[in-house]
């Protein structure tokens, strides 16, 4: 049955009717993005600007014996060369705001430019400013670095051995019990989450399945490479234009790394060409700032694709073990998981988030989860869309599928029976509020794909898989300032970088609350001097938190309009009612536009504003169904059909909710089937190009059918749950379960590349 995903299916579990929310306007920034006029970070050029380039380590693990920059400095056109000596000593300070505050600043500083030692292939060593990018590139070749090459450690299971080379000599494990290890090692941190009595739970089980899984490193793969332009004025004011998920985060990092007053740092968020968690931290900005201070000129820097793959923050590879106990009638009695993730060259992986998500779709009375953050000779890893959850739930959802097969229980029925629901325990979090896992599972069961038997084809191995996914979502801080113009239109300043239509999803909530059309709201992503504190575009938080700030700002504006009209009409403010964008009292009435005109004559110009740090994110569930065909000869897996079901709370801007679902699925399919960093034994990254790190093309995937489920989040006035991240979580497990259905083979490594599937088929035969 053909399904038109241009307007996908929506299943509502509420009776709310809205005027603006749930409609499909054209996004405010769409025009300039289809004409090429939108200005991304690399699209600006300042008068007098110079160009910066970065020298990177050819080794994965080495001591820097000496750096001689004199030949580079002598090259015609070169204006400055800096090494880590240009950075202030970070001492024992900790990092400030951002996505992972509280880590030692010395690690972040040394990741900007290596300090004494290189920790991974591609680690930045020095930066050059020159008249043009080609001269800067030539100058890099004239920097003489002497290295003492050390043995690298690339995988967590090797790095955790007691005789492994220790990458950071003064790194002592922060243990789960609050103590610190006495001997240095590569394990930066251990964590433990526990509920109930896990031993007793396993003792009650009739069946225990215990499996191990491993993961390659994957990159977020945004199409725009990292870039930054900085201008350090002689009075200490530092202006930065960048492509980042969080301008305020970049400002904080610059203040920390450069030991510079935050009031003197002004960060302008340019349009951003994708981020997915990989653009939450500084790489080039501090280098451009230091080179600008040294030369007195604006400095523009941009990575090439090899730099991006080698030296930004991909998401970890690693290890996950999942053990589940069930009774013969299919009730889960206990779960145990052990996760060890690559932090990369410095501490701080996303393993904690993985621990919190691994069993999240299920009501599990007894569970224990251990996590390990492990330093290895790879780039410092970062978030990638529901960071850690995809690894964790690939493992747990594969084990659930194996249990269903062994006990001959329908995988939908098993999940419905064991599903987490409102009030159930959540690992390391308060009990669940109203959530929509059951509603998603029912929608998947009733979907066109699940109800249509898989079409067999002679000589073809075809299979169907299903998997659940959870991501907890994040609140953080957001600000909105909205100005009422005299014609009744509103200029809305917000601080959230717009990566996928959030200007409009924020403006729609403002319009709904004030009772105006979304076309009468002009949303602007403002710089750090022009709007209140706003944290990164991450954690699926923008439509939830910045949308809430917009709703609150609209109410603030409404109150100011009411006060103004009360004076004008000589009535009590509380006698003025507001409905459908019209204010009324005592037989008088005015639309927002009329009110704006009346107030202007009185010299009143309402400005609604709000800063909010909401904590009731609500959590997001998704259920995906994959039909695949496995080529037995080559091991290649083709996706035949795919349905994504997701609880969006309330979908504010449905076409872009569908877009998040479809985009997340295809990233997940790439992760499932193909994407992986390939290293040689010496730790050199061998596939640092988009030809060799191959992401899905239009030809690799089918249309993605979407079903939006609306179970409103009680923690938001319009019921919003974040939607951006959870759709990447189920695809690898859904694909693995489909591959098993097709071939009888269980895959235990991501990606399930043709070579690995072929090897698994050969081993089975």
């Amino acid at each position, binding site marked *: 049955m053909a399904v038109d995903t241009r307007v996908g299916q929506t299943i509502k579990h509420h009776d709310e009717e809205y005027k603006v929310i749930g409609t499909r306007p054209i*996004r405010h920034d769409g025009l300039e993005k*289809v*004409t090429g006029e939108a200005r991304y970070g690399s699209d600006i050029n300042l008068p007098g600007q110079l160009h910066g380039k970065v020298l990177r380590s050819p080794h994965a693990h080495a001591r820097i014996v000496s750096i001689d920059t004199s030949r580079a400095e002598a090259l015609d056109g070169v204006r400055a060369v800096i090494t880590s000596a240009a950075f202030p000593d970070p001492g024992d300070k900790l990092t400030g705001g951002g996505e992972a505050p509280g880590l030692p600043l010395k690690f972040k500083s040394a990741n900007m430019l290596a300090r004494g030692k290189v920790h991974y292939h591609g680690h930045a060593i020095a930066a050059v400013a020159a008249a043009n990018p080609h001269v800067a590139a030539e100058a890099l070749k004239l920097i003489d670095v002497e290295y003492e090459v050390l043995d690298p450690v690339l995988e967590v299971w090797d790095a955790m051995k007691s005789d492994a080379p220790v990458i950071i000599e003064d790194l002592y494990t922060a243990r789960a019990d609050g103590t610190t290890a006495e001997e240095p090692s590569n394990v930066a941190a251990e964590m433990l989450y526990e509920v109930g009595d896990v031993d007793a739970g396993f003792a009650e089980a009739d069946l225990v399945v215990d499996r191990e899984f491993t993961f390659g490193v994957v990159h977020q793969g945004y199409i725009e490479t990292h870039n930054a332009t900085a201008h350090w004025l002689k009075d200490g004011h530092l202006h930065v234009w960048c492509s980042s998920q969080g301008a305020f985060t970049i400002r904080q990092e610059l203040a920390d790394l450069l030991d510079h007053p935050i009031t003197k740092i002004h960060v302008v968020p340019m349009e951003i060409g994708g981020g997915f968690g990989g653009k939450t931290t500084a790489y080039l900005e501090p280098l451009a700032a230091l080179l600008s201070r040294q030369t007195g000129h604006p400095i523009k820097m941009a990575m090439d694709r090899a730099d991006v793959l080698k030296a930004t923050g991909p998401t970890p590879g690693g290890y996950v073990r999942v053990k589940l106990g069930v009774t013969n009638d299919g009730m889960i009695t206990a779960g145990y998981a052990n996760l060890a993730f690559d932090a990369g060259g410095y501490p701080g992986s996303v393993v904690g988030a993985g621990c919190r998500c691994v069993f999240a779709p299920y009501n599990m009375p007894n569970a224990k989860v251990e996590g390990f953050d492990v330093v290895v000779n790879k780039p410092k890893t970062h978030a990638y869309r529901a960071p850690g959850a995809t690894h964790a739930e690939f493992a747990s959802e594969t084990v659930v599928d194996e249990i269903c097969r062994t006990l001959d229980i329908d995988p939908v029925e098993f999940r419905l029976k064991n599903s987490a629901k409102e009030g159930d325990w959540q690992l390391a979090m308060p009990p669940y509020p109203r959530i929509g896992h059951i509603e998603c599972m029912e929608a998947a069961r009733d979907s066109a794909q699940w109800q249509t038997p898989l079409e067999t084809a002679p000589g073809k191995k075809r299979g169907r898989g299903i998997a659940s996914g959870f991501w907890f979502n994040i609140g953080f801080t957001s600000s909105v300032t909205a100005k009422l113009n005299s014609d009744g239109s509103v200029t809305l300043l917000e601080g959230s970088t717009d990566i996928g239509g959030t200007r409009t999803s924020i403006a729609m909530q403002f319009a709904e609350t004030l009772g105006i059309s979304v076309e009468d709201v002009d949303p602007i992503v403002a710089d750090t001097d022009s709007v209140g504190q706003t944290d990164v575009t991450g954690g699926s938080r923008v439509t939830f938190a910045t949308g809430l700030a917009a709703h609150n700002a609209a109410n603030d504006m409404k109150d100011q309009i009411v006060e103004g009209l009360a004076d004008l009409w000589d009535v009590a403010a509380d006698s003025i009612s507001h409905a459908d964008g019209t204010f009324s009292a005592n037989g008088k009435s005015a639309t927002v536009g009329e009110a704006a005109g009346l107030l202007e004559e009185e010299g009143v110009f309402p400005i609604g504003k709000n800063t909010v740090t909401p904590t009731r994110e609500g959590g997001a569930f998704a259920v995906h169904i994959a039909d695949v065909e496995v080529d037995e000869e080559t091991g290649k897996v083709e996706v035949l059909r795919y349905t994504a079901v997701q609880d969006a709370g309330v979908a504010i801007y449905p076409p*872009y909710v569908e877009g998040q679902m479809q985009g997340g*699925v295809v990233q997940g399919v790439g992760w499932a089937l193909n994407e992986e960093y390939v290293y040689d034994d010496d730790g050199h990254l061998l596939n640092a190009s988009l030809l060799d790190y191959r*992401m*899905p093309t239009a030809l690799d995937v089918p249309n993605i059918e979407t079903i939006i489920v609306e179970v409103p989040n009680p923690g938001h006035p319009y019921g919003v749950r974040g939607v951006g991240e959870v759709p990447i979580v189920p695809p690898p497990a859904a694909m693995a379960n489909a591959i098993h259905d097709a071939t009888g083979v269980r895959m235990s490594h991501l990606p399930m590349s043709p070579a690995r599937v072929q090897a698994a088929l050969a081993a089975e035969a």
Partner: protein
Amino acid sequence: MATEIQSGKVHVQTTINGESVDFLAEPRESLLEVLRDNLGLTGAKEGCNNGNCGACNVVMDGVLVNSCCVLSVEAAGASIETIEGVASPEGLHPLQQSFLENAALQCGVCTPGFIVAAKALLEENPDPTEYEVRWWLAGNLCRCTGYDKIVRAVLDAAERMRAEA
């Protein structure tokens, strides 16, 4: 025409979006660099600089090319169409309108390349199948949308253009 001058730069005369254009370029500079940095036509984007992502797509003498893989001196005497020339003073191209209405963009950085590539497709094949659209656009990477809405937008635009033809 391309004439080498004393600075080591080359004087190139070309046609971009129907207008005669002159520029000076170093022989090693790519067409993408010159478009973006010398001529201010920043709609074409650098995503990989080695022909693997299509974000820098332009049409040169009727052929869809990755401008990162064309030397700027090769533009001499050629006729080049960039994203900046796709809309007309009368309004958007049907593909641009269709991308907006079908929500076929998210971050937008790959969008100019997709529109230039899709326009080249529809000029060659006004009535493509879904498979033909996917095959043609396989040289353009999008990491946000999963391609679904892009493919639908191209098919939708093709239908509109056939109706208007």
